[in-house]
């Protein structure tokens, strides 16, 4: 049987997390379909069709799907389920919102946040903020899984020759009213996929001081992240948060500045290839996971870092 991957997108671009999910699905089987539910998104669906390994794109367009409302999207997925052995979605807030509804509607358990696929029914997933890894086997006849995007490479956006099939759906009307979104706009790379991430914590002390973090980040073409304490204190928006209840990042380089290294923060970054910590407290737990630790006052270290980076660029 085929595998259905749920396409996460904004009607213009497919989110890269879907490409990671396609790679994950391909571990099980190469007969992959992607469903795109949105509004005025045919052009994007045509591009999805060229993704490596994708055999078919199912396209459902309607103004009511302009925004991904869980109550509107999940019944569509549920209606498609009978033809698939696995339904796969990224474990982003998009997938987390929708997939458990699909699972419950089909009387299936869901395996969340899969980081490794052993075979068609056995998966590895982190529990306890990544302090333990559980290998679990689903005994349901259909598997509903969400994929941790950073654990799988993105599928190539070329090489596929899928057909695009328009589908229709007339199910229940949900009355949930979409009011709006506040998305922070930034020219910087996306936090989830950036090669370098520079994160600030409570030690940075204010939104104003975060400018020092941005400056270093921009010199490295890096994304900016933050600890929960920094977000809670209002230094940056919630979409910057790295950790158990924020985003998981696995960059080549993660620089933690004024972050103590609570387990909930480590849950979101400890798989990074190289970790740097700058903290004035030599006992800070972040140093236990850092490849390079610098015990320093960040207010002295950041301007120095900024000027050292100017030097190497020349």
């Amino acid at each position, binding site marked *: 049987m085929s595998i259905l991957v749920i396409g996460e997108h904004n009607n213009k671009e497919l989110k890269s997390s879907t490409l990671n999910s396609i790679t994950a699905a391909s571990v099980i089987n190469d007969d992959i379909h992607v469903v795109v539910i949105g509004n005025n998104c045919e052009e994007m669906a045509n591009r999805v069709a060229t993704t490596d390994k994708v055999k078919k794109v199912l396209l459902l367009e309607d103004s009511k799907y302009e925004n991904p409302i869980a109550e509107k999207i999940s019944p569509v997925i549920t209606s498609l389920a009978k033809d698939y052995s696995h339904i796969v979605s990224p474990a982003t807030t998009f997938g987390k919102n929708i997939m*458990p509804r699909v699972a419950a509607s089909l009387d299936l*358990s869901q395996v969340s946040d899969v980081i490794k696929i052993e075979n068609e029914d056995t998966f590895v997933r982190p529990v306890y903020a990544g*302090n333990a890894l559980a*290998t679990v086997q*689903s005994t349901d006849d259909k598997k509903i899984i969400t994929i941790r995007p950073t654990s799988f490479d993105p599928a190539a956006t070329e090489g596929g020759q899928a057909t695009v099939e328009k589908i229709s759906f007339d199910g229940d009307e949900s009355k*949930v009213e979409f009011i709006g*979104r506040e998305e922070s706009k930034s020219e910087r790379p996306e936090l989830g996929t950036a090669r370098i991430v520079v994160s600030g914590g409570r030690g940075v002390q204010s939104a104003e001081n975060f400018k020092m973090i941005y400056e270093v980040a921009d010199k490295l073409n890096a994304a900016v992240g933050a600890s929960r304490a920094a977000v809670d204190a209002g230094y940056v928006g919630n979409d910057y948060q790295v950790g158990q209840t924020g985003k998981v990042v696995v960059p080549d380089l993660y620089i933690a500045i004024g972050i103590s290294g609570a387990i909930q923060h480590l849950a979101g970054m400890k798989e990074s290839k190289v*970790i740097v910590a700058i903290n004035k407290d030599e006992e800070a737990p972040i140093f236990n996971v850092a490849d390079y*630790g610098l015990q320093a006052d960040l207010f002295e*270290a950041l301007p120095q870092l900024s000027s050292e980076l100017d030097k190497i660029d020349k």
Partner: protein
Amino acid sequence: MKILVTVKRVIDYNVQIRVKSDGSGVETENVKMSMNPPDENAVEEALRIKETGKADEVIVISVGGEKSQETIRTALAMGADRGILIKADSNLEPLAVAKVLQKIIEKENPKMVLLGKQAIDDDCNQTGQMLSALLGWEQGAFVSKIEVDGNSVSITREIDEGLEMLKLSLPVIVTCDLRLNEPRYASLPNIMKAKKKPIDLLNVEDLGVDTSPRIKQIKVEEPPKREKGIMVKDVAELVQKLKHEAKVI
């Protein structure tokens, strides 16, 4: 309006987890247990809604072992009115918990159910959304702001891109983020009062729902340990190491 709040008893978030050497799970003997953190926010929010006069009863419910009564007691000490413990010995999967909750909801008829967005033990992030689908109620997931106005509930949700605002109609399911509010501490008099508040005990077997496991746990392992690195003496050395040793900049 009645509000139902779910509370799960989990290993305290400050405890360093130890994986059992036989791979069967995580050490829970003699380990500090607490209320799942976002469930505290759910209790707090329910109490605040009640305090504005928009709700008249806050019921807390937990599914788990006998000791989950302590977690319910904590919520009662914060100010909830009464508790329900559904006794179940194993760690039920979110689907099973959602089915159990559905049964209780059909009996109690709350207009709003508040859950945590995620249990910090299984990290599933499923139960509220499943419950919403089972009941056919509207859902607000990962919520950091709630405003109740008559029959409509305006919520702000935390999403990867930032924030999303939705307007829902009662009855609703809301899963709470830690940023929703600052949970109160129980005062001593309230802890005393809580001892007299009623907790109903039910057995999961008596509810007539299928809670059989669908997911088999094969093994639980410790994640690979990271080698502790080196301390550098200054920023110049750091940049040199990143450039020439790690080769990441």
